[in-house]
């Protein structure tokens, strides 16, 4: 078995068995296996569901899609997301549109200023993740894009 295969098998073993650490040393054989530490990640009770910031549309992560090398365009700022520069106008982009890095995909209004957001990726829009007029936070995924040049 190759080293890579061994590592892969170890990782799947870890995932399947809730381990946190495996250590091997093969010459005079040294093995170390560690279970995930029952310590707790969530220290506090979950608070009431958020009132003002609605969950972004389709914000649930799709690991399978992600594996298919989809890229996300995320918000570089906090503000209000608009698909078009002016109310009633056509959205800058929609599903199926082809983007180059300079394509303006939306605008985000912050402190009364309209900021144009560029794709910064080449590809095709697969999904629009935020509804028009909704607030977005820093780093929030806005679009999911199938890149045409390089994989993720």
């Amino acid at each position, binding site marked *: 078995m190759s080293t890579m295969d061994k590592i892969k098998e170890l990782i799947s073993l870890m995932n399947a068995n809730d381990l946190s650490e495996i250590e091997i040393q093969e010459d005079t054989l040294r093995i170390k296996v560690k279970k995930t530490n029952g310590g707790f990640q969530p220290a*506090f009770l979950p*608070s009431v569901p958020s009132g003002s910031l609605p969950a972004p549309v389709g914000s649930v992560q799709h690991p399978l899609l992600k594996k298919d090398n989809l890229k996300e365009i995320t918000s570089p700022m*906090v503000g209000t997301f608009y698909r078009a520069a002016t109310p009633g106008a056509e959205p800058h982009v929609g599903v199926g549109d082809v983007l180059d890095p300079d394509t303006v995909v939306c605008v985000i209004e912050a402190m009364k200023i309209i900021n144009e957001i560029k794709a910064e990726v080449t590809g095709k829009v697969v999904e629009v993740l935020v509804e028009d007029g909704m*607030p977005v*936070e820093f780093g929030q995924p806005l679009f999911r894009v199938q890149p045409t040049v390089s994989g993720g």
Partner: protein
Amino acid sequence: MFSRVLIANRGEIALRIIRACKELGVETVAVCSKADEGAEYLKLADNTVCIGPSSPEQSYLNVPSIISAAEITDVEAIHPGYGFLSEASHFAEICESSNITFIGPSAKTLKMMGDKAEARRVAVANKVPVLPGSESTVTGQQEALGIAHKIGYPVLIKAAAGGGGRGIRIAHNDASLVSSMAVAQRESETAFKDSSLYIEKFIEHACHVEVQILADQHGNIIHLGERDCSLQRRHQKLLEETPSPSISQHQRSELYKTAVKLAKAVNYVNAGTVEFLVNKQDGKFYFIEMNTRLQVEHPVTEMVSGVDLVKEQLRIASGEHLGHRQKQITLNGVAIECRIYAEDPDNGFRPQPGRITVYHVPGGNGVRIDSHVHQGYEIPSYYDSMIGKLIVHQGTRQEAVACLKRALNEYRIEGVKTTIPLHLRILNHPNYLNGDVDTAFVERLLMNGG
């Protein structure tokens, strides 16, 4: 009272403010950087907005992002906590122009008291004693040398825009003044984009005593006693207590009067702290600066006064009258706070980011814990290394020290090293027990080895 407030801070003080808001029935919006995203204390807020990447400049100091977060969540007010934007007059101004209440004094007051030279002029004009030193900011070397020669060495070099012990240096002669100035200016330029300094007489055996002020928008000003913060390391406070073990009843009432006089003179509103240096040799005191915000060490005042300072800040900012008159305030017993830092004492007290693998806190009578961490918490490397505050409240100083020692011994923290052993060393030192401390006590203790 406000219905929704944004907290423009992180860590223990963000949690402190969330708790106060919850108790007042005020909805909370917490903000966070990418480094803090998902932190457990944020889940206690009603809402969280990520405002930027991990670096403070791009997140907790990012004014447009915070204002924008306030706008999209439709809050009525912003609590800045301490540090970060808490004393930034431009931030308070933008809040005002955005119709968001800045929970603190006015932008004008922040500007006036934030400029140390200006604050000094105000103090002098109101007959508040100040340390001999430069009357305004100094940038030139010759000017600095001239002042140093006039007031005599040693002198203190302070960044005009500094705070939290940053940008402070001592010079004992011309050569060290020249080199320290250069470093201080470079540091201050990087940290605050302002290289102006000022210079004052350095008092060798001094204690640091500060008076807590509360003032409403209707002209009522009270004090809530003093805090002694003489125990510092690299000009950063380590242990604070009230009442001060170093001053007499007479000095105490003089300090209170002086602090209230100064606060009145500048029409101060909200919570503030007037800091004094008390010369242990002749008992004279000098105004240093006014902190126009909540202090890290505010809990010791809360313990002895029974007044919740954060709730009072919220009440004052929402236009309410002070809930307490001066004569209704009684200060009971003694309170001491230890700031617990995740630092490696064997490595020059370097901050120790990392995962807290075991975390158990002390409890019982007279013990208060203010902390945002928990077992499994990952301390980010971008911010302050303080992981919590232990505060005790007892009838006498002797009892408070005993309680603090037993509580520190109950702590169980693994994964990172902390300053707990240093706190125990301080508490076991006979000079500390006798109240015989000054601002150089900790440095002396550390120099005297292991």
